[in-house]
């Protein structure tokens, strides 16, 4: 495969030629040119692409070069996450992530690795998410060879030293003991359980489940999930494609598949009825979360739903939730929504943190704002604002070489065609008002909503029962 990188293949023509006298030297506002009438030179931009190669054992490797700074970044994506915790041992994947970094390998003890990496000022981190894990590494160019060896042995041959395992488990237990100290964190954690009820994604760690986990569980989990066929790699920075391939082949290329049976997760079941849950906590501010399962990233509905979410709550100050709840009524500092589209399903959540005394009022407002999408088409001006904003912001997907390599690795992980990014702005631009209403009707049926309110019930402005039957949830 040709090792030509296209990342620098960007053409731009920008010049701030003076736009006449109108803008010049006047403090009088009536002489200022209205912002809408400013003229911009076109921004020519070609999507930078990462080079894709494969190690001799088939592990895909995405490479984006950038030689400005003497840094190399490396990321391994492992197709396994919290949702893969064995039943009864919730918290295992997280612990694997922790002890992977601290527990040593067949070459070096955990303490030796810490000391070596710290001395070369290498950053290593492991993020364990719901369905995948990211092991990331950033190192100065001069230390690359030695650092890569360590990175590869951590990925491939961790030993999860007993002592480091015990420390990590105790820390996770302490973290759980403290989980209710942060109301927002507690609410979003609990919400996961409600949204994915009956699905492995909805299982939370408990003192019991953490207590049941032993070092052998970590070794087994690693053996079953950290296999070449379950891994994707990306490299960026001060390294050539050829070099990256040869270095990684040397330390990972002969790693052979042992267990090729990948346990794939089926998408969570769509809800059949609405639920409203109260998590009582004595705190001056309630946390309200309202949500649904949404369309997957591979669906044509992904685009209109992205626009809907932008207009409803993720599009900043102009989004309806921000405008109505924060700006117009002063009922919250944080008010918005997000949509995460995964491979075969998506999640949509709207949230507001408001004083206990306006809890019911705000929940009513959220429900009204969501319902409005089903009852009325969005205005064309509002739609244009959203689609322009999303399309114009698209270039920020590629701020650094690392973004470029990572994005393309994520495309493969999500099973999307390489043309996905090229087509994205056009498909967003093509979203019409009817599309938005259609996806609202499909995915935001109020009779299937999942609602959580965390707060001090006695201070609420009205009982939550006005919104339906209330279930009660405890922290533990």
């Amino acid at each position, binding site marked *: 495969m040709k090792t030509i990188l296209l990342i620098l293949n960007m053409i731009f023509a920008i010049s701030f030629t003076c736009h006449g006298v109108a803008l010049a030297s006047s403090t009088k*506002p009536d002489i200022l040119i209205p912002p809408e009438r400013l003229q911009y*030179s076109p921004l020519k931009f070609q999507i930078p692409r990462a080079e894709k190669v494969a190690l001799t054992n088939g592990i895909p490797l995405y490479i984006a070069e950038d030689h400005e700074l003497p*840094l190399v970044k490396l990321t391994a994506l492992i197709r396994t996450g919290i949702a893969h915790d064995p039943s009864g041992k919730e918290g295992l994947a997280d612990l694997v992530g922790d002890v992977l970094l601290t527990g040593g390998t067949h070459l070096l003890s955990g303490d030796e690795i810490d000391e070596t990496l710290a001395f070369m000022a290498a950053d290593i981190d492991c993020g364990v998410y719901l369905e995948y894990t990211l092991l990331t590494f950033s190192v100065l160019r001069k230390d690359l060879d030695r650092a890569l060896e360590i990175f590869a042995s951590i990925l491939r041959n961790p030993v999860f030293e007993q002592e480091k395992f015990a420390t990590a488990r105790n820390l996770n237990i302490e973290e759980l003991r403290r989980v209710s100290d942060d109301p927002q964190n507690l609410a979003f954690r609990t919400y996961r359980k409600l949204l994915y009820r009956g699905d492995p994604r909805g299982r939370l760690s408990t003192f019991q489940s953490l207590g049941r986990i032993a070092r052998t569980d970590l070794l087994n989990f690693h053996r079953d999930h950290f296999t070449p066929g379950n891994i994707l790699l990306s490299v960026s920075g001060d390294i050539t494609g050829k070099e990256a391939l040869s270095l990684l082949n040397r330390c990972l290329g002969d790693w052979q598949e042992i267990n090729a049976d990948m346990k794939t997760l089926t998408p969570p079941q769509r809800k059949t009825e609405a639920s409203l849950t109260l998590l009582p906590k004595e*705190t001056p501010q309630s946390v309200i979360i309202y949500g649904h399962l949404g369309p997957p990233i591979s669906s044509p509905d992904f685009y209109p739903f992205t626009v809907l979410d932008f207009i409803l709550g993720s599009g900043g100050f*102009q989004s309806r939730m921000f405008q109505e709840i924060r700006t117009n009524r002063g009922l919250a500092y944080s008010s918005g929504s997000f949509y*995460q589209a995964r491979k075969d399903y998506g999640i949509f959540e709207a949230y507001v*943190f408001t004083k206990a005394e306006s809890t019911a009022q705000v929940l009513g407002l959220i429900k009204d704002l969501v319902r409005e999408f089903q009852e009325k088409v969005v205005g064309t001006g509002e739609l244009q604002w959203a689609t322009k904003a999303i399309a114009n912001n698209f270039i*920020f997907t590629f701020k650094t070489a*690392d973004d470029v390599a990572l994005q393309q690795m994520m495309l493969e992980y999500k099973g999307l065609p390489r043309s996905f990014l090229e087509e994205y702005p056009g498909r967003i631009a093509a979203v019409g008002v009817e599309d938005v209403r259609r996806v609202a009707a499909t995915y935001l049926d109020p009779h299937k909503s999942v609602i959580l309110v965390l707060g001090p019930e006695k201070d609420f402005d009205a009982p939550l029962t006005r919104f339906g039957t209330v279930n009660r949830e405890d922290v533990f």
Partner: protein
Amino acid sequence: MNRIARALLHSFLFSAVVCPALLLFLSDSSCAYDLEKQVKKYTLENGLKLLMVKRDFSPTVSLYIRHKVGAADEQSGKTGTAHFLEHMLFKGTRTIGTKNFGREKRILDEIARTGDALDQESRKGEMADPSKMKSIQARLDGLENEQRTLVLSNEIDRLYSENGAEALNASTSQDVTTYQVSLPANKLELWARIESERMMAPVFREFYAERKVIMEERRQSIESDPDGKLMEQFLAAAFIAHPYGRPILGWPYDMSYLSIKDLDDFLKQYHTPSNTVIAVVGNIYHQDVLRLITNYFGPIPAGETPDSRITEEPPQLGERRISVSFDANPRLVMGFHKPTLPSYDDYVFDVIQALLTDGRVSRLHKILVEEKAVAESVRSASSMPGTRYPNLFTLFATPRHPHSLAELEEAMMVELERLKKEPVSDRELERVKNSLKASFVRSLDSNAELASMLSYFETVAGDYRYIVEHLKIIDKITPDDLMRVARKYFTQKNKTIALLSKTPKE
């Protein structure tokens, strides 16, 4: 992170939209990368300073405006002014956000008078006349409704977002107020157009609704957050005279009575060109940027150089120990008064900070979290809560059950005492210096971070080259320096400690 990145990566930025009140800044240091060669610096005639770096990886540009003003500059009784003003600068200008400014202005003036009357009555507390308040409130509501028909709400954000802006935000610290955004490189003029006008002619629309928003912000980050509450109480105990002892968001009473005039006076006094630094980093041509900024910001009158008369914190005469009762698991904060930059000792504290808590190999992590297992977490910061004035070296820690706060404190003190007696090994010192150098290189990877760093140090240190000099000085620091500084500052007399628990012991 933008939309696609969010769609493809996990990410969960739920409160990132607006205005973090606290800006914790890590001092970074330099390396082989020749920063001085990359930075072009200009000062306009009105005193505004401009720093530019051209970087072409992506056709985008990151923009930071920093005013050298923060919560520390507020008058007593008006705490929270700087932060509230920062919120209000998103409400538009005379030409942005209005359908008819002439008509709107008359209503706005009436709203200010009516709101003042309402506050005046309300401040009488129990003596306030409820029926009078009700009628003024009704009048205020009416005026606000009338004004609403003339307002294009959140228009600044609409202009930015529609043009593809990324990371539009602002923040207020004790020292500095910051307005930041990244844009497609061809949209630079939009930024200049909006920012130059909001610097000199903002309009405070939707004032009283926003005053409720900042109260919600306080509820979110202090009243319902044990870390936020503990920090507030700790700083109030550590500083008895200097304004660093007051919360950035303000004390609730002050916040609830801030007026349009308070904000306007503060703006006129401090958001002046000579008190402002702009950093522009990205795919730019220096001359074009300079011309654009001269055109838009040049006409802003220089104004007077602000003169905050900020008192000096008198020497501490003995340990200060407070307890905070809060429905959460125990935690503590301790701090020691110290000088700020460019004092040599301030650099030594940067090394001590990294040595004590940066990474798993750091002393406090290794000993308190792993070996003695008395702590769940330990962090430190070398300049709390700001860097314009003498500040605090601060340590935060949470005990691990069943260990008590007392055991945790004792274990921490053992390590601070050790710093006074045992010289740090050459290897350990070198490791810390390596990590300070590398973190600087990493920060250069992002246009926004570079713009942030340049503008920050130009503002608080008076010269961005502080970043470059920083490492040179760090490199000279010896084991003896660490012992000397530890002995001088980590004393019982200079210590403030705040302990949070459900049932505080007297």
